[in-house]
């Protein structure tokens, strides 16, 4: 069973094509690293999965449901953290959590509380006064609050300090412990991806370069993920 199936996903902005005929699958229960250089189209692709952007062609299926037709039902079961997450600034953390929780049928309040404690986020503070790191941690806590079956992270901790990055990796790991949970996360910090990913999807200039098991890739390339990536992308650049 695949948690994510992407078929021929394409996005054009006027004359520019950001994502071209992207097709790949992410098996249920895996941690999939979505890799590419800056501007490769990762964020655009992820936004299409989350129905934040309308594909010019192709489709995506999450947890067996079409991402556009069943978007609202899917959002009960999918957690998402965007790149540089934005929250309603004027609210206090407590109010934002309550506001977010109101949308979900099943909300794991103790879990969210635990995470906020672990991240040392003051519930009575206004969201606009949180540091970048705390803001990202808050976003992760909110994303995990709905006990999602699928967690999608878009460069969640890029630019944040090592401790916050570890929090994100831990979050991924904790989620994946449970049966049938899947994680897709994009990053260009390949050494971190290597730690936790068992699947990888590599894209460059909006096109798929490789998708499959990380282990197989490393075995066939005989080198680290970073080196493999550089070689594969560099090859394309030279062509």
């Amino acid at each position: 069973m695949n948690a994510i199936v992407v078929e021929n996903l394409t996005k054009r902005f006027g004359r520019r094509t950001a994502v071209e005929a992207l097709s790949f699958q992410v098996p249920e229960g895996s941690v999939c690293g979505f890799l590419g250089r800056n501007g490769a189209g990762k964020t655009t692709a992820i936004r299409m999965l989350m129905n934040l952007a309308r594909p010019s062609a192709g489709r995506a299926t999450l947890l067996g449901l079409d991402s556009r037709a069943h978007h609202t039902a899917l959002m009960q079961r999918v957690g998402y953290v965007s790149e540089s997450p934005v929250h309603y600034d004027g609210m206090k953390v407590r109010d934002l959590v309550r506001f977010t929780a109101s949308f979900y049928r099943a909300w794991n309040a103790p879990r969210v509380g635990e995470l906020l404690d672990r991240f040392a986020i003051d519930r009575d503070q206004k969201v606009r006064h949180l540091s970048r790191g705390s803001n990202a941690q808050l976003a992760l806590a909110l994303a995990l609050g709905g006990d999602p079956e699928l967690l999608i992270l878009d460069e969640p901790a890029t630019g944040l300090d090592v401790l916050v990055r570890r929090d994100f990796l831990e979050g991924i790991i904790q989620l994946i412990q449970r049966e049938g949970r899947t994680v897709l996360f994009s990053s260009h910090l390949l050494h971190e991806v290597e730690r936790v990913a068992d699947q990888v999807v590599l894209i460059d200039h909006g096109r798929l370069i490789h998708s499959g098991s990380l282990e197989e890739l490393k075995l066939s390339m005989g080198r680290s993920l970073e080196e493999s990536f550089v070689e594969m992308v560099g090859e394309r650049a030279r062509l």
Partner: protein
Amino acid sequence: MNQLLWKELRDLRGWLAGGLGLAAAFALLLATDVFGGSFVGLWMQALMPMSAAAAAIGIGVAQVARERHARTLDFLLVRPVTPQAIVWTKFVAGSAVLAALVAAAVALAYAKPQFVLDTGLRAIREQVSLKQLLLILFPRFWCLYALSLAFSVLVDRSLKAAALAGVLAVALIALAGAFADLAPFSGFVFWTPFFDGTGGLIEAARSARLSSVTGGVYAALALLIAATAAGLLQRSPERYLGTRGLAVSAAAIVIVAVVSAEGASVRLPELAPAGVWQLPGALTAAIHADDVPPAFVDESDEGGIAAHGSLVAVVSNSAVRFVDFSDPAHPRLRSTVELPLWQSLAEWSVFKAATIDDAVLVVGQKKALPVDEVQIAIVHSSGSIDAVPLGPVRPSDYYSVPVPVGPLVYLGVTHGRVCSLRIFDPAAHRELAPLALDRMRPPAKAINEGAAPVRIIHRGNYLYLASPSFLTTVDVADPAAPRIAGRLPVQPKADFLYGFPRPLGWQGQRLFETRYFPQSVTAYDLSDPAHPHPAAEFTDHGGLAFDGDGRACYRPWRSGVLEFQSARDGFQALRYLHSGSAIATIALSGDWLYALTAPTPQKPRTVQAFRIAPSRGH
């Protein structure tokens, strides 16, 4: 969903607090009489519609576009809630806040009931309750709000949506103005978007049927637009219009407005003037700087015109000019008769005269000692002037247009609080016994009454007179022995409108009485000429009272004169007498209509002759 609605309302708290706070501040100022009553008039006509429209647009444009720009819209879009629900929730919150703001804005106009200087506003307040006015106004602003919200869904910055909404609002206002002008007698005035000086909105507010129809349509439109906005966000969360799309949309709005105005403008058969006579004007040298072009200056800004046969008399403050139009293409000035020490009694800025044979009757005041005297001057084209003294000038007196009946002249006069019909025999230089018409009720407190006018028209064997309390029919089959044939008591629309002028006109079997504030026409059936009975009342927004000679009605319209006739429930336009200039006043004689153009600094005034027979209404 509750939490989302609460959040949307919280987002709008600035508007609510600001709007209500401002309204409270103004109410306080009104209570302390800082502005006096004059502010309320300004508020109603200009500021209230502008601030309500600003609120409607301001609230709507930010609700989606600002969140899209700040990226908080994404936060909502990845929750298990449909984009449609997001838009509807915003719509509900915005509508509630808008309702509060519009109510506060309109209520300000009703703030201090006892002291209002503005007549138009007073008429509104005394005839339309706050609730009625709100019921008719709110759906219109609701519609504007829904449109702003829809624009907000289309773009990525609130400013862009505001620009689009602003273009639309201006186009609608211009369109409403254009419709009133281009399509006379159309019922469009009832659909005026925001507020108008023509009173169409007021008339609609007073009629439960019109109120519910127009209100219902606007409300349905608002909901339809909101549904469209919701559908658009559901279809795609990204913006629909970039900068280029925005420019195209704005241009499209303007084009559609212009095309609608063109399409709606009534195409009437036109008639060109058969002859034109130019008034001589004193060419004054430029008094000021050299770059001020010389302008034709007539002796007075007013002026009147009367016609008898093909002799046209153009009356100004100090002279009467007799122009012979027997060869219409080549009119010639027959004589100019000066009126020394004379000043016509101007009334509502339109001066009229009447003719007997080749003389003009002019009512005016003559400089005299110790007090100026009111006279009727009978000015003959030969140059001689006969004067019929009426009495000393008194500020609260009113003298109507003189109406010749046979050899006699009738004049409606208000003196003290009594209206009477005075009768003169100009040939014998004597006055016959007057006929009392109306004893006015005592003056109401706090109403600053002016002189109460009496309006007269002559039809066949009867004179019809409109005085403050009555519409009186006088039998003048024997001009020397007039008698009152009937009297219809008249109900003013509001207390303070008692004593306002009610100009009369007639066409075919119908007598028309114009009322003001808001402007409407009461049509009376004259099948029994002695006893007119009310047949219909309808709104007329064309402007001032019209002239009729029985065969058709005429009034100044656009760059000429509109010829129209009575239809069952109103009027029907017939022809457009196109003169190329705005017309001040007209005179009818036989098959001809003579129009005196309004004064403009660029062009000299003219008299234009139109041959209106044989093809006319029945």
